[in-house]
């Protein structure tokens, strides 16, 4: 358990409560995404989960937002919104509530950046003005923070992409992206856990599976863990892939 009594000096913790359809509420912070803001959001999530009288279904953290889903038949007025506002204020004010219940881990993930796995490498190269080698070097030497899981089962939203690698999403999402594809979308980078449609520029692929529904721990990382990528060749990819297909345990990778 990590506990910090320290109050942030440069983080304005202003927030709004906004309806996200009729089954969800957003607690939105005006501060820019940061590790500190994510710590607050994860801490707030744990704090709200502890309120037994609150009938919520799910709390979905994001970079600057915590979405609360609920059964609208149980809250047919603004009472949930009011309660959440009070709780959030209380949490942010408390000096000892900025805590996390779990020690974050470092997870190393192999990525093959070779041509057959990187259909958008040239697009990213043209947009950023970097050579593919420079892109791979920058991408695999950074340390990334897991801000949240989302999009599809086990997908990790990572912070820490080098600004030189920022590249816009595709105009219309691709209808098929293979499982393990590593992409860049705007200022974000990440791995597609399953074959899905998606709008990011694909620059590589990992043989690791990010979502193992039959494992006792189906996900390789949790919010606030850190991720490091390391470059592997196509033949190394082909060596790892079958092992992962048969059995993958969190202990063997990294």
């Amino acid at each position: 358990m990590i506990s910090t009594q320290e109050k942030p000096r440069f983080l304005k913790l202003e927030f709004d409560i906004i309806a996200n359809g009729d089954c969800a509420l957003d607690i939105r912070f005006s501060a820019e995404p940061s590790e500190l803001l994510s710590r607050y959001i994860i801490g707030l999530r744990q704090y709200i989960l502890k309120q037994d009288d609150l009938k919520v279904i799910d709390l979905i953290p994001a970079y600057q937002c915590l979405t609360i889903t609920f059964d609208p038949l149980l809250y047919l007025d603004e009472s949930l919104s009011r309660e959440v506002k009070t709780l959030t204020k209380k949490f942010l004010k408390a000096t000892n509530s900025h805590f996390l219940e779990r020690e974050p881990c470092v997870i190393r993930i192999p990525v093959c950046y070779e041509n057959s796995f990187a259909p958008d490498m040239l697009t990213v190269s043209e947009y950023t003005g970097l050579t593919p080698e420079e892109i791979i070097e920058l991408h695999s030497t950074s340390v990334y923070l897991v801000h949240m899981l989302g999009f599809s089962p086990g997908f990790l939203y990572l912070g820490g992409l080098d600004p030189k690698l920022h590249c816009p999403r595709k105009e219309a999402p691709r209808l098929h992206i293979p499982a393990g594809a590593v992409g860049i979308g705007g200022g974000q980078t990440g791995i597609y856990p399953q074959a899905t449609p998606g709008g990011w520029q694909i620059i590589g692929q990992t043989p690791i599976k990010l979502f193992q529904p039959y494992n006792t721990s189906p996900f390789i990382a949790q919010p606030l863990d850190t991720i490091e990528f390391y470059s592997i060749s196509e033949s190394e990819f082909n060596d790892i892939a079958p092992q992962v297909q048969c059995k993958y345990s969190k202990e063997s990778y990294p």
Partner: protein
Amino acid sequence: MSMHFIRAGLQTSIQDYGRPGLMHYGIPIGGAADPLSMKLANMLLGNPLNNPVLEITLTGPLIEFTCDVSIAITGAQFKTSLNNRAIEYYRVIQVKRGDILNFSKLISGMRAYIGISAKISTPMILGSTATHLISGFGGHHDRAIENGDRIGFVDTWTARPAKLKRELQPNYKLRPLIRVVHGPEAGSFSQEIMEKFSGTSFQVSAQSNRMGIRLSPSINPSREALTETSGKMISSGLYPGSIQIPENGEPIISFIEGQTIGGYPRLAHVIRADLHRLGQLNALDKISFQVITLENARIILREKQKSLEKLQREIATETRDLLTL
């Protein structure tokens, strides 16, 4: 005891209420695309409303039963026969061992549901037997049913006769007017675009699935407006029913297996009370949207819940009447 799928149909799968509460792991709720039809099938059989059902999409299966069991079919209307004799939907049907259930031509809607007075022996994964078709887990061997599959039962019971009056059965031939509330980024779109959105008759794209329902035409928001919105946009939990506007301006409704966090600005959000209607939208269907207030959305939901409860009582009464005949 099993159902033997001689022909599987285009996308037949085991579904229930899905997996609510796991969106923070990126796992969408999933489950029946039209949960109302699923509930009605279970209601008719006197089952728990969440008892797993078979969801049939677009082209139906040919099923042989290897045991006696009661079934009820709801949702999209297919030409359907039991041992070559036409059968009615929205009523309890007693099926005997060796009976053949055949779904042929689709008449209206998109997805039919077979409720069964049995416990399907498919294991629960992450709290549900629902098949997550996009991510490939849950249900029968993590996939849609294939030709030759057998879906086993561990338990069967006989349901009392029951039926739903024709006038109470959903009608999918009418063009749906889907009610929506403003989405989290509605304020970033101009008044003109908002009016265009409510005034347009959209067509459902053939590329729609359980993840998302794609619509055309584009509402052509200016590129500047979208870039500005995207730049300012705060990604947050994307609940089924969110209507996102990607850069090409063609709306995408996030559906039951949709991504759990949003990347594109959300102009509107389909109200919970109308969400089940999305499960019956077929390619090329026309739909339009009516923007209402959050307060009205709640009133509509409460009313709809009341009529569903009334329906449940009526089915129970109906059952009693049929038994005394």
